[in-house]
Every structure is written in structure tokens, then in C-alpha cells.
């Protein structure tokens, strides 16, 4: 099928079948490298819908790295969709739609990146865009922490220590992605933080109303209004 640009959620996105260039194991995670095709990498924090072979719905994944001619995604095999994606090998191809949603606001004075678990996914691309600012990463085990190699200069903690233990009193402009309890904790310590949230999502472009989160007492679609939100109440 042709790969036409179509306005989705007020942004230009494309859908194309992309070849798998590689799938590298890092601890329990898989770094999936796809060819870029004619897709734009978008702003760090934006996401793509990745076809999960054999599954009815695609999976939303934020871009991890944007090497020349490629798009790279960090995956953790936690369910049938992510297991299907992690089993992709060179020679396979999947449909990809994107970029979608709101990324991070890069107009920040003193950025500090905070990530937890597979939630560090958007941070390598973000770090590149911001000129490698300081980063704090937290993982549940040493094996999970192997993936910190994607951000070589980051400070890393492993449970029971928490990434919020490393947050300075005046953390500056925090840009964070990770599990919900981590984001809640970061929000309490760093008002005005930009937080990248996650929700089960069917479409990624505002059609299904499945990915809502409560913002100011109202349900908002995370795919359209997020996934990066500032000051979620």
C-alpha cells in the first residue's frame, strides 16, 4: 500500500511496512531496530503503533533511538504483544504508524532525565536532542540495569533503592518516564515535571477513547493529549 501522510490527532503521521534490521538482547529487554522508511522520527516522547504479529491490536512504543535510516524501540516481553515483537528477526517486517502524540517540550533550562525500567525507552533519543543532560535511572535488578548502557553517563540505582532517592532538592526541569508509582513520586518532588505516561491503547490516534487518564477531573485521551503531560493532577 502507498505510504501517504495523513493528519492524525492534528499531526502528520504515516503508516508503512518496515523491515526488521536487528533485535539485540540487553538483559531482559530487546532493542528492536527497524528501517526508517519514509516515517519521521518525530519529537522525543512521541510514539509509534507497532504491529504485533499474530495479535489483533498494535502496541504503542515511544522511539528509543533514531539512527540514520532507522527507528529503534526498547521492548520488554511482558505479554503476548510484546513477546511477539521481541521474537522479530531480520527478514521480518511489520506495519508501523507514527509518529503520534505529544512529545517532550525541549525548551528547558536545566533538564534532568529520570527513568525507571523499560520506561527509560524514550530517554536515549531525548538525551541526544538535549545534548546529553544528567540522567537518573532506576531498575528492579542488576540484570535489568544492563540496559543503562544506552545512557552511559547516567546515575543508576537498583531496588530497594529508588530513583527518587537520587533526586536533588531543586531538581530543575525534570523529564521522566517510568512506572506509574515512580511518576507519582517524581511529581510530588518536582512540580512542573514533564511525565510520559502509559495506558492500554487500541488505535493511538484518538479513535477508540481507550487510553484515557484523569486530568483535572476529566478523562482525557492520552494518545492525543499525551503521552507526555505536565503537572497531571
Amino acid at each position: 500500500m502507498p505510504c501517504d501522510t495523513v493528519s492524525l490527532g492534528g499531526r502528520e503521521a504515516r503508516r508503512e511496512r518496515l523491515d526488521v534490521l536487528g533485535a539485540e538482547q540487553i538483559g531482559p529487554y530487546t532493542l528492536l531496530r527497524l528501517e526508517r522508511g519514509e516515517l519521521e522520527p518525530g519529537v522525543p516522547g512521541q510514539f509509534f503503533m507497532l504491529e504485533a504479529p499474530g495479535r489483533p491490536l498494535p502496541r504503542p512504543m515511544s522511539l528509543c533511538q533514531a539512527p540514520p535510516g532507522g527507528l529503534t524501540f526498547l521492548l520488554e516481553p511482558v505479554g503476548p504483544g510484546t513477546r511477539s515483537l521481541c521474537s522479530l528477526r531480520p527478514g521480518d517486517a511489520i506495519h508501523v504508524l507514527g509518529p503520534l502524540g505529544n512529545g517532550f517540550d525541549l525548551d528547558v533550562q536545566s533538564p534532568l532525565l529520570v527513568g525507571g525500567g523499560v520506561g527509560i525507552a524514550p530517554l536515549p533519543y531525548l538525551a541526544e536532542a538535549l545534548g546529553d543532560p544528567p540522567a537518573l535511572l532506576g531498575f528492579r535488578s542488576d540484570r535489568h540495569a544492563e540496559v543503562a548502557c544506552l545512557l552511559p553517563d547516567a546515575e543508576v540505582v537498583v531496588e530497594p533503592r529508588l530513583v527518587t532517592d537520587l533526586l536533588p532538592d531543586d531538581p530543575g526541569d525534570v523529564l521522566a518516564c517510568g512506572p506509574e508509582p515512580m511518576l507519582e513520586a517524581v511529581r510530588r518532588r518536582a512540580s512542573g515535571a514533564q511525565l510520559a505516561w502509559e495506558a492500554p491503547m487500541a488505535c493511538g490516534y484518538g479513535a477508540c477513547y481507550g487510553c484515557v487518564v484523569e486530568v483535572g477531573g476529566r478523562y482525557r485521551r492520552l494518545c492525543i493529549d499525551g503521552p507526555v503531560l505536565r503537572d497531571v493532577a
Partner: protein
Amino acid sequence: MRIPLLNASGCLDALTAPTVASQLDAFVTKTVTPLPREGNPPPRIAESDAGMLNSIGLQNPGIDAFVHDTLPRIAELAVPIWVSVGGFAASDYSEVCERLDDEPSVDVVELNLSCPNVEEAAESVTELVAAARAVTTKPLYAKLSPATWDVAESARAVEAAGADGLSLVNTIRGLTLDAGTRRPSLGRGVGGYSGPALRPIALACVHACAEAVAVPIVGMGGVTSADHVLDLVAVGASGVALGTILFSDPWAPRRIRAELDGSTTATGVPSERRIHDFVPETTPRRRSSAK
């Protein structure tokens, strides 16, 4: 015969995806209720091996905001507009239908009589259709649930109550559990099951109803290809709506239209009934004379 392609209600937002809506022969809105509704608590989406569950719960801005804000913006797309109407009592249906009757940009009203994610109205589907019929001159389509022993009986009843067409089928109630906790995946527990698993169910319902009533039928349920469209047409559908496939492939309407245009497969005997917005200049004021 060009087979009209629509979207299933709740499976496309024409304002966030205008170019997708413009590929359709008619755009069907998300269900509108008298008052604004925030919808069900998340998680609202779960996947199963052969389909998906949703538990949206009729999130919508209510009829006032719909008429003032949403409808004029959809109308700019120049695609025929079907408005899906829902509620929790016959008076809800009649209130929304009465408001829409004054809106020239609304071509068809589809009555959502079968949302599996909210409490049912106390009245029967027949009473709900009759209440809507009494207050609107728009063509009225009744969207029925497949979760009934004899859907043809419901079809005959809503036809007799004044429905101009049928939309078949809505999702069917289902439940998935989280693999780790064995607790329901969805915030509200059960949800509406859609996708490939619904297709044989939809075919059976369309087949049964096409033999039972004279009004046109929009078939839907698990359609992902031109073959699926032709199957529904072969059992009596006059138009076909795309649902779950739009979530994974917003380009599906264009792809399926191209497949249909290039198809050499026999379509069986195409229905001579025409769905209403397809020939808007001959839209009847009340009961269809389409057959």
C-alpha cells in the same frame, strides 16, 4: 453496484482523523447522550487472541455541546453524517432525536440500543424506537445486539416500530483476566468484544434479519477485507461498516475500497435495498420504500 463503506460507531473520531473519515461513504459518530458523560474508569481496552474488549461507557460531550461544537466541525468534511444516539430511558432517546431533527447536516440517526458497557434502558428496543420515531423525520437505524436468541424477532419488532434500517451488529459482552492477578483486565470488569471473532456472529445475524425484514441493513463485525464485505453483502447487507480494523489500520477504508474495485469475485445477489444517505435526495420521511 458500489457498496457503501461506513465506520462503526465509536471506532473513528472524524475530528482527530479527518482524512480517514473522508474516505468513507458516511461517517457514524460516537454515541451521543442527553447529558455529558465521562465514561467508564480505565483500563478501558483489553486484547484477546481473536479480538478486543472495550469498556468506554459512552464517553461523550452531551447533545448540547455536540450540536454546538462537534457537529458543525464534522459537517465541514462534506461526508454524510450518521449520528449515533444513546441513553438510559426512552425519554433520553426522544430528547436527543428531537434536537437532531432540526439539524440539516444530520443525514441519518442510528439508535444505539445495545451498548454492552452501560445499564440498559428499562424499555424494550421496540419502545425506544417508537419514542424516537415519534419525534424525528430523519431516517432511523436501529443498532441491535447479537446477544439474543432470535435477533430476527427483534428486527421485525423495530421495523414495525418505525425503524428505516438496521445496523448489525454491536459488540458482544466479554471478559478477560489479567494473567498475573486473575482479576478482570478492564476497570469495569466486562466489556464489548469485537474484531475477527465477531464476524461469523455478524453474518448469522445479518442473514437472519435480511430474511425477516424489508428495510436495509448495514452489516458490521470483524470486517478486515473486501472478501468480508462481500460476505456480508451476500447475506443481505446493503452497506458495511468497519470497526476494530480502523484501530490498527486507519487506511483500511481506502484499501478495502481498492480491493472491492479490483475484485472479480461474484457478489452473490446484491441487495436492492439502499441505505439512506447513499441516495440522500430520495430519503424518505418515514418508513423506507427501498425494497
